[in-house]
């Protein structure tokens, strides 16, 4: 094509394929090494006959389970990793042959179909053991309950229940009644005594405090890394890269290696900022992202934004592992701080608080607009996102709504996705006077 009108210079293939130079991109390499080691350790423990626990990302009970030396498998994480490596479709079909509907969450379908009796446990990530116990931390997603029930009836796994009330008072933001924290704390003590009987290990508050000290340190540096998105230009993509960096705060939180990792991450982002390096050649658009990403086509989907030199500055999905902007761990009151951590998972916040958090991100991170990625599988995230759009249109904040699924590849159509993303940036360019 001959004449490239000035408008088209806003889009560039070079930007779409851009990779951060190696010396500024070690954190993601280190992260995938540590994740691979985590999977190897879990498989080894299972081979030695240790009891395996299944855990959930929201209200992740990892500190308690570390106390009793119980390895934890997170079906949400192995499902998204299988999908990221292109292995989700056979699991969808296998689950649907067993009677699961197309409307069931694709996390649940791949999580159940990957292990016996439906699957074999062999996955692109290596062997994934089935659960002996399943710790149900019902926070932010009702389908967690139904998912854990599936494991109970398919594999006989024993369910340990921790019911975490929703942050639900529409008259007072962030209000958590006293009886909520006491209810969660009482249940934590109940689960602790059950785990004492199961493993024969005595509960030691001193050891829990030590674990929580590492957790708090990793947590604070995870927050420092994410808050670098406030800088103009931002050294990191507060959505697409943050989702890579999010793995360890979930899988291995509570030990020195993880705390050191997030210190290393903050240094690397610091070095990037000083060298003017970022996830794209230049920073033309700054965006806040709401919603779960598309894992099966992650890199292609990301390049639809990179093509416009657009960078995510903040995202709500990484806060599923805990709203790190709002909550801080206090190792001195271990049980209570874990209870409060479990309450402040992103989807456990009500819709008004979620809308306010997004508005805070737009202001504090100086964003040009919001991208809402609605996914068919997850009604906990997606139901009512249309209302968010109305809310932001009312405040004259440009908002794009796009749709696919987070694990099931059958819901991603690139032509439609690209059509909407290009149109959004065309109107955003006009608005920013970049014509």
């Amino acid at each position, binding site marked *: 094509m001959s004449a490239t009108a000035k408008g088209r210079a806003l889009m560039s293939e070079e930007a779409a394929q851009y990779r951060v130079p190696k010396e500024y991109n070690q954190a993601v390499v280190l992260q995938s090494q540590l994740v691979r080691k985590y999977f190897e350790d879990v498989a080894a423990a299972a081979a030695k006959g240790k009891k395996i626990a299944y855990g959930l990302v929201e209200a992740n009970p990892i500190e308690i389970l570390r106390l009793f030396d119980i390895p934890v498998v997170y079906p949400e994480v192995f499902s998204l990793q299988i999908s990221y490596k292109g292995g989700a479709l056979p699991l969808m079909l296998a689950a649907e042959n*067993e*009677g*699961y*509907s197309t*409307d*069931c*969450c694709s996390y*649940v379908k791949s999580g159940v179909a990957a292990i016996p009796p439906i699957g074999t446990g062999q996955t692109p990530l290596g062997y994934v053991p089935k659960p002996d116990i399943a710790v149900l931390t*019902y926070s932010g*997603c*009702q*389908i967690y*309950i*139904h*998912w854990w*029930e*599936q494991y109970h*009836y398919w594999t006989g796994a024993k*369910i340990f*229940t*921790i*019911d975490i*009330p*929703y942050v*639900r008072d*529409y008259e007072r933001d962030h209000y958590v*009644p*006293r*009886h*909520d924290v*006491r*209810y969660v704390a*009482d*249940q934590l003590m*109940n689960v602790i005594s059950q785990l004492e009987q199961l493993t024969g290990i005595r509960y030691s508050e001193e050891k829990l405090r030590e674990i929580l000290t590492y957790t708090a340190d990793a947590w604070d540096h995870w927050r420092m890394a994410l808050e670098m998105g406030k800088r103009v230009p931002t050294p990191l993509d507060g959505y697409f890269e943050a989702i890579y960096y999010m793995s360890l705060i979930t899988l291995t939180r509570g030990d020195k290696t993880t705390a050191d990792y997030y210190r290393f991450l903050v240094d690397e982002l610091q070095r990037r900022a000083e060298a003017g390096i970022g996830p794209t050649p230049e920073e033309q658009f700054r965006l806040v992202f709401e919603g779960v990403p598309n894992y099966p086509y992650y890199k292609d989907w990301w390049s639809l934004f990179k093509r416009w030199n657009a960078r995510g500055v903040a995202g709500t999905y990484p806060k599923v592992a805990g709203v790190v902007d709002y909550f801080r761990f206090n190792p001195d009151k271990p049980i209570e701080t874990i209870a409060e951590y479990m309450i402040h998972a992103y*989807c456990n916040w*009500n*819709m*008004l608080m*979620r*809308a306010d958090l997004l508005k805070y991100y737009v202001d504090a991170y100086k964003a040009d607009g919001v991208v809402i990625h*609605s996914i*068919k599988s997850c*009604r*906990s995230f*997606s*139901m*009512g*996102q*249309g*209302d968010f759009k*109305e*809310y932001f249109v009312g405040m004259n904040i440009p908002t794009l709504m796009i*749709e696919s699924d987070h694990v099931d590849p059958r819901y991603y159509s690139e032509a439609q996705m690209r059509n909407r993303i290009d149109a959004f940036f065309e109107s955003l360019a006009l608005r920013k006077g970049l014509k």
Partner: protein
Amino acid sequence: MTLLEDAASREPLELFREVTEDSYVDFSWQRRWKEETGGRLLGYFPVYFPEPIAHSLGFLPVNILGASGYIELEKATAHTQSFVCSISRSTFELAATGHLDHFDALAFTNICDVARNLSGIIKRNKPDKTVVYLHMPINNAVAPAKDYLYAEYGRLIEKLEPISGRKLDMEALRRSIALYNEKWELQHRMEQLRIERPWLLPYDEYYYALRAGQLLPVELYVEKMRSFLSEVEKRDRKQQDKIRVLVLGDFCEQPALPLMRAMEDAAYLVYDEAIIGPRWIGRVNEAEEDPLMALVKAYTDNLRPLTTRYHPLIDKQQHIAELVKDLRIDAVLFLVPKFCEPALYDFVIRKLALDRMHVPYVKLEYEESESTFENARMTLETLAESIIFG
């Protein structure tokens, strides 16, 4: 003549039908009740709610169950996605178009993520409406659950007292519990009648009588239900050679009555989960010293499974085996609302048990706004054919 005088003179079934159809969109009956009696209106969505608490504070607790296809989903299309159940979308449409404005408070509970988020977006669009979201405990096997729910009901009472203009009185609550126990008892009696002699009471009549129980003042309803049931029990109708079917899945979104009629041509639907909320807890122990704790225990200690409420001590597969045996069931129909994820997961758990017991079953999806039922009729006929002419 006042509304209540007119209602008192009316034939029970005629009143039940009128107030049910009025509750699809307008709730004009409740609006007139509020104007004439000065009482307060509380709308709750869609399954379980502790009605006696609201009643003892002068509220008429009303079960909002979507618009059953009688309203166009225009604002709902803007604010929600299409992969969400229709009852939540039509309930949003009712709120957004002002059909719920005369309700003094709206209450929601944690039955699924869709209903939870619905309460939030209704509050954002109706900022001056009192919206209460109750987190009902799911860890009901442990003692702390009771203290938690007791305090949570306390939070509900704190929100309702300023609207009702008076403090909760324990004796008033005891009287309300007695009244509602009678209502639940009558509804249970009708349920048993459908199980034992389904030919006496067609599905439409059963449905109108059941739904009216959460639309009319309990005093009026109990009186009308007594005379209605005695009339039904005296009916003399012929029993047909139809299979006995257990229906599971319709606990929230309301199946269209013509759909149920089309299926009743082929089988007796002896038990279903429509309007399960009020029938579910059975009885509140009136002998309990503290009536509020009695209400709490009626919830936490109820071991009857319900898809929208988890309980660690319940074995759903054992329960369906007992249900099939006790109700002499020939086949099970999983009637699942489109996009209703909780129902779809319980389907897998229960079908595994039915496979082991070699009990025939079939799954059908429906939407409240459906207007064609040929597929449903044909499916039930085939089920019946394969059993009767086997």
